[in-house]
């Protein structure tokens, strides 16, 4: 999957492995190429190896095997302080004994910049995150969101080409987090810096990134732009992990080009797009997003398979309706519909016909 920008990637991982105890691999044969200026997110559950990858890139962990390159140069044997990579830490890691301005000035001092240049750059970085008046404060006198901005400014003040972010928004409340997601993305694109962002929050990954690498069990499961990741997951793990997903289990009955007929365990037949099933008789998990389920049969193609569904629960959520159905023995089949004037509010206990475009229903590995 790194073939399209293989050797000219700005950051490349080549068959990188990492083991802490010499027995189990936390990162298994990682190959990844990140283009200059790209915003790449490593997304995965905890223990999936994403933070280890970031730490290896920063130089705080060494790769057990393989090569990490930055700008074409192997950085395996370069200590962290000579890598010139900016980083925003999960707990911000602001120096508590220094003022905000001193915090920002620190990376410039160790680079032996003279005083006037330092002050100028510190001011510019503070203005960049709208914290211009806070230079004289200490980190403890700032709110969480303000500390987060300072940590961001400090990672950017020495103008690194690569910035790493380790779950930087984890400690903020929802509203602030959404605001900072937008600001970080904008800053990263305006400054043209390459960003590697680690998170376990899929919303963050989807809204901020150019590409997302979904990690599980030390392996990248899928590396794709957010829309592709959400709409065309290539494995059942990704389908389940990203967004809400309705899973139905069955086996392939026939495949005809882009449409496969799946016989569900309940005996019902449905149409699906074969993704990583190729043979008749393969066990499969089909994935349908809650918002792609169709009630209006006139919108479906001639001869589409439909299912009978029993309405179990109807939840009014303001902008959307969330309906829980029993479909093919699955009690947890969720359908999301927009709160439009003509939208039907389904009554619990009633029975409806549902269907979908075969292209929205993906037959994945079981």
């Amino acid at each position, binding site marked *: 999957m790194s073939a399209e920008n293989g050797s000219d990637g700005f950051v490349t991982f080549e068959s990188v492995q990492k083991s802490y105890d010499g027995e189990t691999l936390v990162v298994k044969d990682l190959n990844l190429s990140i283009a200059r200026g790209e915003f790449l997110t490593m997304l995965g559950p905890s223990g999936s190896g994403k933070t280890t990858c970031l730490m290896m890139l920063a130089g705080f962990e060494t790769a057990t095997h393989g090569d990490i390159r930055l700008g074409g140069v192997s950085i395996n044997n370069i*200590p*962290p302080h000579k890598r*010139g*990579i900016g980083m925003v830490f999960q707990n911000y*890691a602001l120096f*508590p004994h220094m003022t905000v301005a001193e915090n920002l000035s620190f990376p410039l001092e160790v680079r032996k910049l003279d005083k006037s240049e330092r002050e100028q750059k510190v001011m510019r970085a503070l203005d960049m995150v709208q914290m211009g008046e806070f230079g004289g404060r200490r980190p*403890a006198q700032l709110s969480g969101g303000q500390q987060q901005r300072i940590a961001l400014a400090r990672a950017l003040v020495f103008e690194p080409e690569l910035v790493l972010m380790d779950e930087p928004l984890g400690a903020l409340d929802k509203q602030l987090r959404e605001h900072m997601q937008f600001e970080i993305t904008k800053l990263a694109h305006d400054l043209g810096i390459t960003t590697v962002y680690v998170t376990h929050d899929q919303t963050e990954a989807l809204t901020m990134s150019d590409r997302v690498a979904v990690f599980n069990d030390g392996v990248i499961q899928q590396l794709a732009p957010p829309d592709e990741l959400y709409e065309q997951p290539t494995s059942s793990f990704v389908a389940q992990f990203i967004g809400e997903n309705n899973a139905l289990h069955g086996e392939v009955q026939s495949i005809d080009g882009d449409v496969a007929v799946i016989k569900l365990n309940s005996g019902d037949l449905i149409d699906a797009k074969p993704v990583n099933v190729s043979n008749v008789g393969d066990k499969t998990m089909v994935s349908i997003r809650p918002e792609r389920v169709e009630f209006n049969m006139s919108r479906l193609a001639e001869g589409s398979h439909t299912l009978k569904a029993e309405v179990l629960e109807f939840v009014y959520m303001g902008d959307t309706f969330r309906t829980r159905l029993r479909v093919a023995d699955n009690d947890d089949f969720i359908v999301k519909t927009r709160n439009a004037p003509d939208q039907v509010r389904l009554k619990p206990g009633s029975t409806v016909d549902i269907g979908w475009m075969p292209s929205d229903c993906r037959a994945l590995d079981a």
Partner: protein
Amino acid sequence: MGLPPYATLGQRAWYYGFRVICALIFIFLITPILVVMPLSFNSQDFFTFTPEMLSFDPEGYSLKHYRDFFTNNEWQRSLKNSVIIAPIATIISVSLGTLAAIGLSQSHVPFKGTIMAILISPMIVPLIISATGMFFFYSSLGNWMENSLGLDKNFVGYIKVVLAHAVLGIPFVIITVTATLVGFDQSLTRAAANMGADPVTTFFRIQMPLILPGVISGGLFAFITSFDEVVVVLFVGSASQKTLPWQMFTGLREQISPTILAVATILVAISIALLTVVELLRRRSERLRGMSPT
């Protein structure tokens, strides 16, 4: 925290009883020191309260023992020795103890518990045993320095006492610095490295300022240990390294002079001043600590 209105009789009794017990413990701890202080202003050469002192007659009080301390050659020489030995021993204790504490706080160091126990042992082993061991060790070391290195006998004597006192001070520094390091956020050193600071810069600019309160309070304990120490110096030192506590000890045995009380009062004053500094530093560190988000 006053007594709540629903307190039972037993709770009320305990509420007041507790305060009485605290006061008694406090008196028990502080009386011996307090008694010494007025006695040091005695105008007679006695160790007891004279009738003049008890009737608060100004004639009964005098600063003559303080004058004796500041003019007597014996006392001045021992003061000078203490003032030379204690700070140098403290500097050695602080440097080595801080490095040891930082080393022992790294997760990859093997046999941490054993190393820690060995380093702390001078504090736990009875002083007289340490002193006996040190006597043999430092006399061989001293002979070697005099004969092989050709150092001056007097100078070697100071080296021996300084090193012995440094060993006694190191455990205090290790304990206080280790305690400070527990609250030290290791991601700060990572952040500094990430920003381009080499390990030495990181140590002096980031780690040291934050653990400084621990280093200083450890240093103060080490200083007081050396400044108050009489057993080891008796074993290891010679007459020319006679320190203040040694002189006081001799003074007690040979001529019971209230000058000892004057010196004791001065030492108590110094200790109070030093401990006040420790407390102020601790508060400052807590203020700083409250700042670092965890």
